[in-house]
């Protein structure tokens, strides 16, 4: 039934917002445990790809499979819920729930959506806070945390759902340079733990060090896809060369 043994399989997806075609036929497959970085200029459709994978944005055309879920066939939120349990997402603006503390933010979805036991979830949430080095901030509200701390809580919140895949959408873009490091360190540990990650990022150095594969997108297409050493040191496509020439 599945076309390949990849965990995530995307084939020929197209998406338009009004007259503007953001994705013009994106194909990508991701193996279990793989960390894939998507780089490219602003407006090239990077974030849209992530949002198509977990169904936040419906696609116009194409095929998306995550595990056993055929995302392109899902019509409503209810059908997407099992998918959302499997795929977590971390956002550029953290998007924590402002009326709940850090600990509650992590516990909410496992208790309220998955129906897990509250005490068990709390233990899990505290362990995750420890993992992201924020144990002492359990009782703080998002408004009392720095950007980097909020982002690490958001990562812990994603992990609490026990996802198979985490989508990272420019998670360091809103942070100041010192705090970027602590967030990247957290992500690096997840990749080393073998969690499947797809990261949209502008951190070229990080993409190079952490990912198994880098995809360069431009104007709605994946122009080039290769292991980081190849893509950064020996880019094949002139557009990749031009982009890397500007950012490196």
């Amino acid at each position, binding site marked *: 039934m599945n076309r390949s043994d990849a965990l995530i399989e995307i084939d020929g997806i197209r998406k338009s917002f009004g007259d503007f075609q953001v994705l013009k036929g994106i194909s990508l497959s991701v193996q279990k445990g793989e960390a894939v970085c998507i780089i490219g200029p602003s407006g090239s459709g990077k974030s849209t790809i992530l949002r198509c994978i*977990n169904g*936040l944005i419906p696609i116009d055309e194409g095929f998306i499979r995550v595990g056993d879920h055929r995302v392109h066939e899902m019509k409503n*939120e*209810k059908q*997407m*819920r099992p998918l*959302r*349990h499997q*795929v*977590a*997402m971390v*956002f550029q*603006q953290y*998007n*924590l*729930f*402002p*009326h709940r503390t850090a600990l509650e933010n992590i516990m*909410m*979805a496992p208790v*309220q*959506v*998955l129906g897990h036991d509250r005490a068990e979830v709390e233990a899990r949430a505290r362990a995750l806070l420890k993992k992201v080095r924020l144990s002492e901030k359990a009782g*703080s*509200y*998002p*408004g*009392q945390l720095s950007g980097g701390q909020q982002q690490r809580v958001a990562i812990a*919140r994603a992990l609490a*759902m026990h996802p198979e895949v985490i989508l990272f959408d420019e998670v360091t873009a809103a942070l100041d340079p010192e705090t970027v490091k602590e967030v990247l360190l957290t992500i690096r540990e997840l990749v080393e733990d073998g969690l499947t990650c797809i990261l949209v990022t502008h951190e070229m150095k990080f993409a190079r060090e952490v990912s198994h594969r880098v995809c360069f997108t431009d104007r709605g297409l994946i122009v080039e896809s290769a292991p980081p050493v190849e893509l950064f040191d020996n880019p094949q496509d002139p557009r990749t060369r031009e982009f890397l020439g500007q950012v490196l």
Partner: protein
Amino acid sequence: MFGLDYSWLADSAYQQWLLMGVLNTLKLAAISSIAAMLIGMLGALGLTLRLFWLDALIELFVEVFRNTPPLLQMLFAYFTLSTLGLKVTDPSTGLSVPLLSAFACASIALSLFGGALAIEAFRSGIDTMPRSIIEAARSLGYGRWARFWRIEAPIAARICLPSLTNILTNLFKTTSQASVITVPELMYYAGQIYNDTFRTLEVMLLVLVIYVALVSILTFAMARLEAFMAFPGYGKGH
């Protein structure tokens, strides 16, 4: 003092009237405030469903009851509805009497008027919800209802609380207009007393103080609620 004569206040009949007036004012305000909140919540909830005809219906309701004077609404409810046939025959006297009492008419009119304003207040709270928060909730697998009750509503409630305070204080003061359709609330008894005693200035001064005191209790309670519900980064939170 200042030539003011409050000797009538010693009369137990007038004391009784004032007390009854205050109680009826509180009763009318409480009933219409609670009903207005419920209407506001239901209306705003209805608007989140984004159904074309329901939206049109709720917006029509808001336009009608927000854009007409509450006094007119009460007069309409009191005189027109009974003329239109909302009457019952009193079994003891055999006379035809209006189905709705003056108090009921005033309660209904004020509830609908306050409800129309409350719908707009709640809607503004829900509409200003950052889209990113909704996206986060969806990505965590929240369904529509769970998302609304667990995330959107608690945040929206905090955002719209100040405008809600405004609506409730206005509604409280508007109860005084119910005296026109003979609801025996504070303003009504005030009229009775100065018609009796001709001490118009004295009676009005006292009524003014009573209204200030009652509304202050309300605004104080709402301010406490706002402080209690505040969370860091929003409104009164630190």
